[in-house]
């Protein structure tokens, strides 16, 4: 199992920055990692690939000291180490880019980065020196952030850069990132990959997880594919292809729907053919004049800082139609969805759903009218981590028949419903009594999607519905969304993935600075046109 030859004396430049040898990690009956070995060398980027629940997060969490392995060893800088907590890993130069940022929101970027390792002068924090050192680092690695901005005011991409700087400030030689691009816009993703590349030039090693094959092909030096906890392939981009990787991940041939996964790499793929491949013969909304289900007029809403994020927005979605909202993240999409679903107070305007006035409705009223909502932030809104899979499968419908009667929960009904959702959406869990926290990221998302699809609804509001979901399951979820549309459900889709918007939508509404600046037909518009509109160009200039 474990190679006994790992006793090379540590030199100035270690041969192996970070490795796991024969790592096995069990959670009760689940073997999350089964004799997994991986190795990261200086200046290289190691990409971990695998289906939802394959064991990727578990592996990096073991390497970072968050989990203790049941068997196997962790090697950092050529030395066998026993990690009892992440502090041990950090002390040895391993950094992790966190999801729930380990940052203090109201504090400045500089202070966050130096926190706990501040340069001192006469017992006081030497702010000037701290600022200088942070700026130096930022310049050296091309990580551009405003050093004096409060972290809470930064978009997620910039917060990630702060996290990276924080690790580098602590002399990290290894950076671990678990699906860092899942929350980024395509532009931010490209930037992040550039930054990572730049880091490797300075000898830093990187382990990152992603479900997007084009990122792997573009950025990775080494690729390790996991399936059911085991390493099923170790390769490099030069030796493989996206199709081969996908097949390795899933264990069967996957129809990648080429355009989605290959066009993006160059950014000039044809949206026309993408859309044509997907929209079926019957563009439902045009065929019959189906009724308007969601009607938004003059809607205004503020963001968390009290600035107007949705600005007199009007939009209608008909039954049997998918309207996709395209836009660079931070242009009010989140606030729009929250204002419709009652999570956020709308300052002006009206919302009507199925001819009922839903302006200022509370989330419960919106649910009862017949709206399904896949929320953007699964940890914050979508699930209660300590609740079982079963309870989460009825999180917003627990009060309805048959899950409740006379104020009592009917456990048997809830459990059998949960088993349905788990089976239909292939949520990998030992049983429905397991806490949702024990699910892998993608399986959490599948559980939410499954829940929102399991009720009679007239309107589906799907925000980033496939975030964190593996390529095999994306296909499936897209199919379900189209099926719903064909059955007459109105669908409002918000996605940071332009590919997803183009692939699914019957109409694309481009959102910029809180307004819908144009509505285009995905079969005729090009990616460039939509990209320009998203960047704020006037529709006339784009001239479609």
């Amino acid at each position, binding site marked *: 199992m474990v190679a006994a030859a790992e006793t090379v004396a540590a030199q100035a430049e270690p041969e192996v920055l970070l490795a796991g040898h024969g790592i096995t990690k069990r959670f009760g*009956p*689940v073997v999350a990692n089964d004799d997994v070995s991986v190795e990261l060398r200086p200046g290289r980027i190691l990409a971990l690939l695998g289906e939802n*629940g394959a064991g*990727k*997060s578990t592996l990096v*969490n073991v390497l970072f000291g*968050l*989990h*203790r392995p049941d068997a196997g060893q962790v090697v950092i800088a050529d030395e066998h180490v026993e990690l009892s*907590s*992440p502090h041990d890993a950090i002390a040895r130069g391993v950094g992790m880019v*966190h*999801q*729930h940022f*380990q940052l203090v929101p109201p504090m400045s970027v500089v202070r966050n980065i130096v926190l706990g390792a501040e340069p001192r002068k006469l017992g006081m924090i030497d702010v000037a020196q701290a600022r200088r050192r942070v700026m130096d680092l930022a310049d050296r690695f091309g990580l551009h952030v405003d050093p004096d901005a409060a972290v809470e005011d930064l978009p997620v991409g910039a917060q990630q850069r702060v996290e990276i700087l924080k690790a580098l400030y602590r002399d990290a030689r290894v950076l*671990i*990132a*678990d*699906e860092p691009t*899942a929350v980024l816009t395509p532009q931010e993703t490209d930037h992040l990959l550039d930054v990572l590349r730049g880091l490797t030039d300075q000898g830093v090693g990187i382990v990152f*997880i992603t479900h997007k094959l084009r990122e792997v092909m573009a950025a990775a030096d080494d690729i390790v594919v996991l*399936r*059911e*906890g085991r390493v099923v392939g170790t390769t490099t981009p030069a030796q493989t292809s996206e199709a081969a990787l996908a097949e390795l991940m899933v*264990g*069967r041939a996957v129809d990648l729907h080429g355009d989605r996964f290959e066009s993006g790499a160059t950014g000039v793929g044809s949206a026309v053919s993408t859309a044509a491949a997907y929209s079926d013969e019957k563009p439902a909304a045009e065929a019959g004049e189906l009724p308007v289900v969601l009607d938004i007029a003059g809607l205004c809403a503020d963001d968390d800082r009290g600035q107007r994020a949705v600005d007199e927005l009007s939009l209608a979605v008909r039954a049997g139609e998918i309207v996709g909202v395209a836009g660079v993240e931070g242009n009010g999409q989140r606030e729009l969805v929250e204002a419709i679903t009652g*999570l956020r107070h709308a300052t002006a305007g009206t919302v009507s759903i199925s001819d009922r006035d839903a302006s200022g409705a*509370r*989330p*419960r009223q*919106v649910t009862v009218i017949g709206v399904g909502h896949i*929320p953007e932030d699964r940890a*914050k*809104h*979508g*699930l*209660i*981590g*300590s*609740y079982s899979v079963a309870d989460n499968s009825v*999180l*917003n419908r627990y*009060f309805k028949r048959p899950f*409740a009667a006379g*104020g*009592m*929960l009917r456990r048997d009904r809830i459990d059998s419903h949960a088993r349905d959702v*788990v089976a239909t959406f*292939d*949520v*990998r*869990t*030992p*049983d429905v009594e397991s806490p949702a*926290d024990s699910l*892998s*990221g*993608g399986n*959490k998302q599948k559980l939410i999607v499954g829940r929102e699809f399991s009720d009679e609804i007239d309107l589906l509001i799907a925000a980033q519905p496939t975030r*964190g979901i593996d390529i095999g399951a994306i296909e499936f979820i897209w199919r379900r969304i189209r099926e719903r549309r064909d059955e007459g459900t109105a669908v409002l889709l918000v996605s940071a993935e332009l590919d997803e918007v183009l692939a699914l939508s019957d109409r694309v509404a481009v959102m910029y600075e809180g307004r819908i600046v144009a509505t285009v037909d995905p079969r005729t518009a090009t990616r460039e046109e939509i990209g320009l509109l998203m960047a704020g160009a006037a529709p006339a200039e784009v001239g479609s």
Partner: protein
Amino acid sequence: MSVPAGPQAPAETDAAGRAGSTDDSRRTLTRTVLRAAAVPLASVALGLVLGAVLIAVQGHSVLSAYSALVLGGAGDADALLRTLQKATPLVFGGLAVAFAFKAGLFNIGGQGQLLVGAAFAAGVGFGLEGVPLVVHLPLALLVGAAAGAVWGAIAGVLKATSGAHEVIVTIMLNFVAGNLTDWLAANPWQDRSGSNIIARTPLVEPSAEIPTWGWLPAGFVLAVLAAVACWFVLERTTYGFEVRSVGANRHAAHYAGISVGWIMASTMAVAGLLAGLGGAIESLGVDGRFEAGVNVGLGFEGITIALLARTNPIAVIPAGLLVGLMEAGAAKMQFESGVAPEIIDVIQALILLFVAAPLIVRWLLRLRDTDDRRLTLGAGWGR
């Protein structure tokens, strides 16, 4: 090739689950309970060990001290009665903290809620005459419970409407309740019979007295029923689902259509009701009246009990019994072995310290911490 059926594929484990005998599930249950109880049990043991050291250092016999303590708390019917009477308000106070905690609220106001419950129940108890027991006693209990509920609800409503922190508000309400009930006992409701100058009410009418059956006070039966009711409400009803959701993830609860404000207000009212009932039983079943200053501190012990029970309503019963026993047996311990009864307070404080700082206990006993807790501290997006 079909979709891989891995070790965690639902179909396969389902079959395995069904094949598993009830024996298996019983064993899992036992294990779950033991795991949850490990820290509290170890804390109690550690507290007793350190208490023993303190007793020995003072030159007393640990064995005779502890055996007197146990005999004094459970040695005969009288001892048992004392223990159960002591345990009753502790269980109610513990429930008042535990229930609020399920909604993520820290109810420090058990003391005030208990005091108003005790005073108003006594008020009804002595104020009404010639009413049959079946009406009088329930009415007195109800008024005490309602007074506590109002006291709790004030904090809950303020929290829901203005965001005022429940800890601050309940602490202040404790002072208000203390002064209000002192004034009631010293002025309008004071016992004027004979030459009484003590700030206390007259004795309650016999029709408002809570009976005692041998060693079993009816009040303790109510406490057990209340604990079971709390468990049932929290685990089996939609309301309990809402309460727990608000406590576990306020944002997700909002998304789920739950009115977070209503849950906060109503949960605090329920918590106050429980503490108020505890106070009412104290007046109607133990003291026979309300007297200023007698119940001071009783409400605060609820916090100890709730922590010891790890806010599990059923576990509040043994936690209350344990502390009740120590308090009931302290007098005998002093009488027989000369150990000052304050040692009990020290032991209690030590137990509380260990429960509140589980890391110390885990480290001392080499109990493995779960990975899950650490994971919440940091992980990537792929979770």
